[in-house]
């Protein structure tokens, strides 16, 4: 029984009531269920299905994508928010519903998640072809998508937490998909534990939100209303900071960013999914969902959010400049771009739409770039850009699509990320000058490493060993579709469509955007300048025996960057090893002294006991048994002498017996 509980459009604060939600929006709860169903079908029937399983996930995602588009159409036509649910459980006065909540933010996220996931599902048919856990891979992929969709649609924090944690498990399984190699399994553990560190404050943040809402509900809308009237600023501030802890872990912000680059150990389609549509987007999405808490909290919260965003943004972008592994370049790029979104959100209500517009465009071009990188890796059998080069003629489709993705990432005018970065810059230019500067510097760095990546892989001489060839159409198809989506997505937030995205996703009243020629010019200049610098350092004419940047920066700086500012080493040597070593030493001591003592003691007691039992057995029981036998034998030996064979003796006995009986009877 699914009932519409309440339509909250009017309560959203002065927002004009829209038209009623369309059918897709009121049935949005089906979207994750499709993916769950496809996961179950894949697991149960996958290996017996022709093609070994992907058909279920792809079919489910096609339907889910149609639903998502339906929801977005509903939002675009001015529909009010759709929400509903069924009662899930009650603990004391605290009740939790299982339901759905579709507003503009959720609808756009649905499109992103189902769209990118669908592309990844298609792409993986080619990329994962022949993998020994192919069916299992598709099962986890479906589950991963379903979990992200649950997060997106969750009307309350508990349902969100369920999706959040299932996603954590799925990311662990997918990063460690090739767990036979130790590097991969330890990367999976690292990702799981690092995000888990963020989950602890997140849990307490949920508790704080429930307390704010009066301890009876975890409904996000109810919390938002309660926060607005709450006078306990300290509690609200604490809740916001704790919730942001979850974002730091899941969206890999400094200082918990270390897991994301290592997560590259997973298969490339997984990286695309994690970086573009699911997992890391969930952290940013959480901030957006709980934005009322952040806005109502002490302003220091948003300052902290902005600072962390700024640190991660530039720090990761610089690290991306020195990576050799193409997937690591993209991983650090993701960190940096996520930090763009986080920093965008830190600008408060005005940055909300811009931040999510960046998430929207980023999902498409980053998914595209990862799948393109996978195509390259598939061709040259190496992750390292030092094994690539000159591939633009051998892999034209991959080259064109990756070029579009790279330009979108770099913020090249009119393509993809340009529009979202421009919006962020415009927002930052009014009152957030330091973020404006950070955005610009990072944009420059982004364009530089993007150019470096392009020039190292597609230009210059080929340096690898394998015979590169264009990937099959099942892999290039998704690339082309995503490239088109990248370009189209960018224009949704441009003056050509009168900033339609801001109408869909906004906080409070829709923001009014104006196209600033000067700011767009500065942004374009940063992008072009970065690309030009990339050409200068890594252009085809350059000698690349030693990385030109290494010569430019000097070995000292280069080493610091190669060691990722020594943060990973610090975590490992400063935190993991001391704890692990002391714990393991304690465990060894406990094992040798206590557990072994118990075991040995038990053995000694058992031996002693068995000795006693053996003595009793030999001396008491055996003697009793033998004694009984011997007694019978002796008695029988004596008794048989009575049988003399002399009949008259028997007759004597007979008469004696008669006499005895007579005496007894007639006494």
């Amino acid at each position: 029984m699914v009932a519409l509980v309440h339509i909250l459009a009017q309560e959203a604060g002065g927002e004009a009531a829209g038209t009623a939600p369309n059918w897709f929006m009121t049935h949005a709860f089906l979207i994750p269920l499709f993916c769950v169903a496809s996961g179950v079908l894949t697991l149960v029937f996958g290996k017996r299905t022709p093609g070994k399983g992907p058909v279920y996930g792809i079919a489910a995602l096609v339907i889910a994508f149609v639903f998502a588009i339906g929801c977005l159409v509903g939002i675009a036509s001015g529909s009010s928010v759709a929400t509903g649910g069924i009662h899930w459980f009650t603990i004391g006065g605290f009740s939790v519903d299982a339901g759905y909540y579709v507003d503009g933010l959720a609808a756009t996220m649905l499109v992103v998640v189902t769209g990118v996931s669908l592309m990844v599902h298609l792409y993986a048919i080619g990329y994962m072809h022949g993998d020994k856990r192919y069916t299992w891979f598709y099962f986890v992929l479906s589950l991963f998508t379903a979990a992200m969709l649950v997060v997106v649609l969750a009307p309350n924090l508990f349902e969100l937490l369920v999706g959040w944690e299932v996603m954590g498990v799925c990311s662990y399984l997918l990063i460690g998909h090739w767990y036979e190699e130790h590097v991969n399994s330890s990367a999976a553990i690292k990702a799981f534990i690092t995000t888990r560190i963020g989950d602890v404050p997140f849990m307490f943040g949920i508790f704080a939100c429930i307390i704010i809402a009066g301890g009876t509900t975890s409904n996000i809308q109810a919390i938002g209303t309660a926060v607005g009237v709450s006078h306990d600023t300290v509690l609200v501030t604490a809740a916001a900071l704790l919730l942001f802890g979850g974002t730091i872990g899941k969206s890999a912000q400094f200082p918990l960013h270390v897991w994301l680059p290592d997560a590259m150990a997973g298969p490339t389609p997984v990286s695309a999914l994690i970086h573009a549509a699911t997992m890391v987007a969930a952290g940013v999405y959480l901030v957006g969902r709980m934005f009322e808490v952040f806005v109502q909290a002490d302003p220091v919260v948003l300052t902290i959010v902005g600072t962390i965003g700024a640190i991660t943004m530039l720090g990761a972008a610089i690290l991306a400049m020195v990576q050799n592994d193409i997937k690591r370049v993209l991983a650090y790029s993701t960190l940096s771009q996520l930090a763009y979104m986080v920093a965008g959100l830190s600008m408060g209500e005005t940055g909300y739409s811009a931040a999510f517009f960046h998430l929207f465009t980023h999902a498409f071009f980053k998914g595209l770039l990862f799948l393109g990188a996978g195509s390259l890796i598939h061709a040259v059998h190496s992750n390292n850009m030092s094994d690539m080069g000159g591939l633009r003629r051998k892999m034209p489709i991959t080259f064109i699509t990756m070029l579009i993705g790279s330009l979108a990432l770099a913020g090249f005018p009119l393509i993809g990320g340009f529009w979202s970065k421009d919006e962020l810059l415009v927002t930052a230019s009014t009152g957030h000058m330091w973020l404006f500067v950070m955005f610009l510097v990072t944009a420059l760095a982004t364009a530089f490493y993007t150019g470096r990546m392009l020039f190292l892989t597609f230009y210059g001489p080929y340096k690898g060993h394998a015979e590169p060839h264009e990937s099959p159409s099942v892999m290039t198809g998704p690339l082309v579709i995503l490239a088109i989506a990248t370009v189209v997505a960018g224009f949704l937030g441009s003056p050509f469509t009168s900033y339609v995205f801001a109408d869909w996703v906004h906080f409070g009243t829709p923001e009014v955007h104006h196209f600033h020629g000067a700011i767009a010019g500065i942004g374009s200049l940063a992008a072009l300048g970065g690309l030009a610098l990339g050409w200068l350092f890594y252009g085809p004419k350059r000698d690349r025996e030693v990385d030109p940047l290494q010569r430019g920066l000097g070995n000292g700086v280069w080493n610091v960057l190669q060691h990722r500012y020594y943060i990973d080493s610090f975590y490992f040597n400063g935190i993991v090893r001391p704890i692990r070593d002391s714990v393991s030493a304690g465990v060894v001591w406990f094992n040798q002294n206590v557990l072994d003592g118990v075991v040995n003691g038990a053995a000694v007691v058992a031996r002693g006991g068995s000795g006693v039992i053996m003595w009793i057995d030999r001396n008491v029981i055996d003697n009793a048994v033998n004694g009984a036998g011997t007694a019978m034998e002796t008695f029988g030996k004596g008794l048989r002498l009575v049988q003399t064979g002399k009949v008259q003796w028997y007759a004597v006995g007979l008469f004696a017996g008669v006499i005895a009986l007579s005496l007894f009877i007639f006494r």
Partner: protein
Amino acid sequence: MIRLPLILVFAALLFSCGVYGVLARRNAVMVLMAIELMLNAVNLNLVAFSASLKDVSGQTFALFVIAVAAAEVGIGLALVILLFRNRASINVDEVDLLKW
């Protein structure tokens, strides 16, 4: 009419003689004869009680006993003859094969 107790005492003495003969004699023929004594002592008792109680069933039993005794002596003497043929002796003490 002789008094019943006298007859009973006589029968008891006769039975005791029979018992002695069965237990003490070595000669198998003598043992058989002693058995006849015991049987006839019992017959005497039966007839005496029959006369005393005016009931003929006792005398009927006596007739049966006489018939059975005749058969028994026939078989017993046949056994003795066979024993003698095999052992050249009718000493019952020597016939003790059926023992430990």
